[in-house]
């Protein structure tokens, strides 16, 4: 699957350090498949104990219908390594998250699931925070975000991760092709590493 340009309204969730337990609580991790995880997305911020929606939560607003871009506070995705977090976001239609930084493990997991973590400078972030539901464009190939004001800012991304997304490269397939190098590495290390008998 190739990653296309995104043009969408933004949902703004101005909270720093949103951890993966908030993105999807642990009780949703008992599944042995990837299906149906959208139900757990921000479960305890989104719904009351009786299962009714909390009207003030950003993704429950009528404007949130069809939103593909989430703007959050700093250090999004900290905490647990659960890949269920990007799975749940993607299953709920989110294709990019814009923040000032991402936790390392979450960022890696997101990139492996066609979910784009976009880091923008503080001034651009401030503009986005002030512009809920405005339309924003993200062009991965050009590595640019077009802000509501029309200003274009660049964002960084690991070149290999970008290539995988843009060209639809399968990372595991790429790694399997390197089997001869792996075998040679193992042969050269025999006796020098632990083998679990």
């Amino acid at each position, binding site marked *: 699957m190739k990653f296309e340009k995104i043009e969408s309204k933004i949902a703004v969730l*101005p*909270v*720093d*350090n949103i*951890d993966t*337990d*908030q993105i999807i*609580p*642990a*009780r949703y*991790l*008992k*599944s*042995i*498949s*990837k299906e149906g995880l959208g139900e757990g997305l921000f479960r*305890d911020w989104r719904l009351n*104990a009786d299962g009714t929606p909390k009207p003030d939560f950003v993704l429950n607003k009528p404007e949130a219908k069809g939103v593909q871009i989430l703007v959050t*506070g*700093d*250090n999004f995705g*900290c*905490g*647990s*390594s*659960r*890949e269920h977090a990007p799975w749940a976001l993607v299953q709920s239609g989110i294709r990019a998250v814009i923040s000032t*930084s991402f*936790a*390392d*493990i979450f960022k*890696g*997991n997101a990139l*492996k*699931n066609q979910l784009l973590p976009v880091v923008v400078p503080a001034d651009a972030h401030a503009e986005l925070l002030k512009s809920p539901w405005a339309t924003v464009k993200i062009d991965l190939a050009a590595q640019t975000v077009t802000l509501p004001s029309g200003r274009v800012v660049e964002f960084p991304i*690991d*070149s*290999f991760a970008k*290539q995988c997304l843009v060209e639809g490269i399968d*990372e*595991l397939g*790429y*790694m*399997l092709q*390197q*089997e001869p*190098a*792996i075998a040679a*590495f*193992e042969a050269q*290390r025999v*006796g*020098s*590493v*632990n*083998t*679990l*008998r």
Partner: protein
Amino acid sequence: MKPRTIVEKIWDSHVVAEKPGAPALLYIDLHLTHEVTSPQAFSTLRERGLKVRRPDLTIATMDHSTPTTSRDLPMLDPIGKAQLDQMTQNCKDFGIRLYDLKTTKQGIVHVIGPEQGLTQPGMTIVCGDSHTATHGAFGALAFGIGTSQVGHVFATQCLLQTPSKSYAIRVEGALKPGVSAKDIILAVIAKIGIGGGTGTVFEYQGSTISSLSMEERMTICNMSIEGGARAGLVAPDDTTYQYISGREFAPKGADWDAALARWKQLPTDQGAQYAKELTLDASTLEPMVTFGTNPGMGIPISGAIPDPASVSDPIEKSDLIKALKYMDLEPGKQLKGHKIDVVFVGSCTNSRISDLRAAASVMKGRKVNPHVRMLVVPGSMQVKKQAEAEGLDKIFREAGADFREAGCSMCLAMNGDQLEPGEYSVSTSNRNFEGRQGKGGRTFLASPLTAAASAVTGVVTDVRTLL
């Protein structure tokens, strides 16, 4: 040769291939796996007709969804049971050694690795779990990965990785009585914030760290992720070698001598460069406790809950207000003396025998406060056996605490051990996120000593008043 850090040395010796424009292919020496983050990775193998490349370097356990009630009882949660059954089937189908609930070696993945001697210096170790840095206590480069990467390691025994920068965390001076390794790491995280180490690997060093036991070093490395670092480690020394020697998977005879010679080359060279550095004076530390909804929101036990009015950054301010609202706490007040409902001693941070001994030393001859429910959950069945041999189980039970079977338990509340909405806990685990220990539950993170003291009094307590 350019002086290198221990992280650079381990990295250099594990690079299988490096192609321009792509991350390095890094070899993984030990892959630990559990029931929660592996099923979808096994499904990938099946869909693509792949095998586990090195089942001999792969170890599985059951810990997260695992009941801590008697192993003779039937498992009541059908979804959790299905996950455990799937793990059994996956390990059978792919030839992986599994420590299931019937074995005497089952336990939390980060407790059993070191316990069995699987964790060794200089190794690359991964697990689909963010607390994998625990193994860094042995001078291993150990970090958490997502399920896609679990699949990559199953299929290739490698990961695509870019190197991390090293962040030196120096701790100097002697700890005061009642202050422990947990307080050191909570103080570090309070200082740098939970994103402070993003993109780095912590190297803990200094006289305080050198004087710590392996179990104390594990507690510190365990919470590296709570400071934003995927990995954290301590260079191996005689304490490390003595711990490993004689364990089931430790090298023996001539292999041991060869391993020891290799391990002694690992410590960081003089003059090696760190991207960041922090120094902490251990002699000034008090027992630490968290008041908020992330592990960086920690204060000394004599300190006051911060006031949002004194915070200038608008998002930081609103986050603090949000945290205090969730925790139902007043700024400016002390946390000491706050009533609690539950005490949890356990988790991959603090469930080893020395943690249980510390908690028992406070509980001995005392009772759990009548309005407090106390849960003591050993990190492994081996820890449980040792605790029973030392009579610690009796101390806990006589005090009125519940002494359980091994598992992650109330750290993440996947197995039915959980807080009720609104309840407060003092917990020796690693995360105080909203709902982490049960929906609506409120967590104060602290050391085993502080947890035990608080169990006795029924309020958040300075353990030094009970020593």
